[in-house]
């Protein structure tokens, strides 16, 4: 297995609290990789470290053998790592379409003056960006709401728009932080096939944080379990489900 994302001995502390301690694992090309663990286990923190939103305390993260650690978030995004947020962070005052257009920033060129002067190349690019924006909205089923402000969308639609925005970045690695949170059973079911479809279609490697265990078991090729910042198990769903340490962590916590 040639790893796409490799997490090497990553630690992060907040004051005295070790949110992550020496976590190491690798995710292979095209894998859908689950990350589970009780609240406060350090899952979101791990995403923040991978995407460069926070510095690591120790260790490093590599993308196809190239170090990501130390790069600023936009550089990491440019290299094809996109994410969603646990507490939805859309550009609320922008329309759904604009949210998806903004995310194509790193894949387009128009500068200040060419944009304002509307040079021919620039106008063409703008049309392309808009067309692609509609396509992606169509894909997540939001084409009908493209002109509405992101803040005016229903909660489930906002979650889908966040995924659409991440896809617009043309990533090779997609990090989803609790995408099913707040969704009803039917929506959750839809989400499973949607993620699978997207991963296949765009050849994505997916890292997925999710609390809803059936969804994770169903969707993921492999699962890593974090507890109090430590990696306590990693492997295929069936194996992880049988792991005594995992059962302990989950039953102990819930």
């Amino acid at each position, binding site marked *: 297995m040639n790893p796409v994302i490799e997490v090497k001995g990553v630690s992060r502390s*907040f004051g005295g609290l070790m949110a992550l301690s020496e976590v190491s694992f690798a995710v292979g090309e095209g894998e859908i990789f689950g990350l589970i663990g009780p609240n406060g286990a350090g899952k*979101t923190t791990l995403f*923040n470290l991978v995407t460069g*939103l*926070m510095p690591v305390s120790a260790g490093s993260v590599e993308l196809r053998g190239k170090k990501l650690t130390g790069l600023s978030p936009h550089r990491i995004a440019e290299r094809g790592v996109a994410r969603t*947020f646990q507490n939805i962070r859309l550009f609320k005052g922008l329309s759904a379409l604009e949210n998806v257009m903004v995310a194509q920033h790193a894949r387009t060129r128009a500068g200040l003056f060419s944009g304002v002067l509307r040079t021919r190349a620039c106008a063409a690019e703008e049309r392309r960006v808009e067309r692609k924006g509609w396509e992606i909205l169509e894909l997540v089923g939001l084409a009908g709401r493209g002109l509405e402000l992101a803040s005016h969308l229903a909660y489930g639609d906002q979650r889908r728009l966040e995924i659409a925005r991440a896809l617009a970045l043309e990533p090779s690695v997609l990090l989803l932080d609790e995408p099913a949170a707040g969704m009803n059973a039917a929506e959750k079911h839809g989400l499973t096939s949607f993620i699978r479809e997207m991963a296949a279609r765009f050849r994505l490697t997916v890292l997925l944080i999710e609390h809803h265990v059936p969804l994770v078991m169903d969707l993921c090729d492999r699962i890593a379990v974090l507890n109090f910042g430590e990696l306590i198990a990693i492997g295929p769903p069936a194996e992880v489900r049988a792991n005594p340490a995992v059962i302990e962590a989950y039953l102990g916590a819930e």
Partner: protein
Amino acid sequence: MGTAQLIQNLLNGISIGSVYAIFALGYTLVFSILGIINFAHGAIFTLGAYLTYALAVGQFGINGLLSGMSLERQLPFALALLVGSVLAGAIGVLVERFAFRPLRNRGADPLLALVSSLGVALVIVNAIQYLVGAEIYTFPAGVYGELPPALMFQVSGHPVVIRTVQAIIFAVCLLILAVVGYLVRFTKFGKALRAVAENPATASLLGISVDRFILVTFFMSGFLGGTAGALVGTSFGVAGPYFGVTYGLKGLAVIVLGGLGSIPGAVLGGVVIGLSEAFVPADYGAYKEAVAFAFLFIVLLFRPQGILGRKQLQKV
């Protein structure tokens, strides 16, 4: 620099620094509970100076609506200062009631509070100008009663001068700091203040009537601003309705230097800036006005949380 000069600068710096401290405390009290800067604070400073002048001297000049008038009764300076400051505190309460509360109730953009408080400042400053004109008012020499104008002593053959005003300023500020310190440390109000400064959501849990609590804070803030203005006014003259603007801005430098929202920080910042100004060599006296802003700029770039403030982690 000789010893005498050193002592002279120290005394000058501590005196003006203590005024900066109580003035900045007024900013910081409001900031620590509401997270906004009250840009009307400089105008309240000005107002305190004019009110105290009116009560203690009561002679108006040749401009404005009140030109040529004089009040029949004058209060002794100490009483005038107290009443003037209380009135300034009352205006502070009105400012809260009419310029801040409606915005807060609506959960409006905090930037609007900047504009609205500046609107209030315009109203206050121009109302002053409308009433008493733009001229300079100075307190007459005898306003403190029978005290000599200055004390002088010798240090290794050189004179050191303490103007009576400076001593009065320092004494009043020290008294006020002691009272505020007591209020914040040992009273229910102080506990609530610290709790709210830590986390606004706790206020309602503690069973505090938030609006009333905020009114009290604005009263204290206005009182402190008014006293500071009156003290500066007695020392250097009440230099027109706009004379609070510079102090208003310097006050910002003080609170940022000490740590935005930190009460001890405001005091420390005031003293540091007062002393730094006092030690600017006479040849560069004109640049004294820039000292506070140089501090403000440099502190913001290198330690935005100030000397005593805590660094805040961003939530993702």
